[in-house]
């Protein structure tokens, strides 16, 4: 370990970051945050403007 200080540091940082990301959660996936959604959405769900609305795509079989 002391023969490879840079690799040791790199590995420890990498493991630390990866463990934290696994624990707390971190993703590049398609989740977006929208702020200030009104309480009225619970009564009128259709009024919510979803980022991914009106998605139309045909994906057929083989």
């Amino acid at each position, binding site marked *: 370990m002391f023969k490879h200080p840079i690799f040791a540091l790199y590995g420890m940082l990498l493991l630390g970051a990866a463990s934290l990301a696994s624990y707390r959660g971190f993703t590049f*996936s*398609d989740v977006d945050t929208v702020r200030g959604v009104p309480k009225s959405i619970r009564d009128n769900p259709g009024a919510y403007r979803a980022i991914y609305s009106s998605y139309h795509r045909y994906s057929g079989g083989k």
Partner: protein
Amino acid sequence: MVRTLECPNCGGTVQLKYERTLNAVCIQCLSVLDATTPALQILQKFQGAQRYEPRIPLGSRGKLATGEYEAIGFQMRSIEVDGVTYSWAEYLLYNPYRGYRYLTEYNGHWNDIRTLRAIPTVAKSMSKEALMHRGAKYTHFQTATAATAFVMGEFPWQVRVGETVEVKDYVAPPSTLSSETTAGEVVWSIGQYTPAAAVWTAFGLPGAPPPAVGIYANQPSPFKGRVATTWALFGLFSLVLILAMFLLAIAMPGQRVFDRKYSFAPGTGEPSFVTPIFRFEGGDRNVDVTINTDLRNDWAYLSLALINDDTGVAYDAGKEIGYYFGTDSDGQWSEGSRGTTVTIPGVPAGTYYLRVEPEMEKDGRYHGMNYEIVVERGKPEYIWLFLAWFALLIPPTITSIRAFSFENRRWAESDYGPLVKSSSGDDDD
């Protein structure tokens, strides 16, 4: 006790400084003289011979690790490989108590050599011929006929320009074993690769040593030992990673916060709806929203929003689910999946609900679907550990490649070069 004599060839002054000298070279005309005869009988003479200047002046003394030595003789020796002549310099060093040793120099690479008073044994070897000496394995590097091209100074044995010997070199960097065979008699010597700077310091030579060109046969690899240790460190990190995985799995079993079944038929009014409210406790955690459907040769699109009822923050995601199957000439086939999971990272505690908006083709084959929404919180996201593991592979792989390329360059100069990649060098698996 210096003896001053006259060269019988050129009449110049010949000084004999060492009592053990058998042959001496006239500094003026380069004739090889028999130092044991009072009149200095001429053994060999030349006309217009090329002169070489020793980098270590003869008569100068150097402090080596094993004691102080005086440079008393210098010769240039050369081998010919594929029509190309390679020459190296050899300095004979003397200490009247400790005896003789040699320094050799080729292209700025130095070796500290002495005769071996043991006989190396033949080692078992898969490919190249190898020898064992004191627990180390020396691999055959080169066999060549070395010719003496130039001599200068005093020698306690016979020297002649043009004299040839068969030289075999075996390497175990930083050591080298060499045999010199003349008329059936084998003389072994052992050398240690020595940095030029050490020679310059030992002999107090002026200026900086000429830089070493290329990689020498027994030059120690800067990567030697590092390959094994980087992989060992990689192994250690892998163990830590597996441990972290187990710890996360034990500490974070996950919590099923919400689970409900729904059905959907397109074209039957407002598709969007909200789920009942559920609570998240504790700190920031992953939230996994899983949708399982009964889709058959159909697709559905789900707009999902996890909305915090207290703060109005929404995590918005859209997922397409499609599952197709059938039979063709190859037999059964299927494509896609009936379910999907959206992971929302770092969701704080609070009261939440889901706003769901399913979408399907109006004239879809089965006209709708049944599905289940499961919300789980606090399960570890292992993908990061897997990615970290791949990133950890990079440094040892690079070290292995560099070590392999260094050895390639070393062996390219040997009887076995240019080295073809062999499975034995594939240590980066």
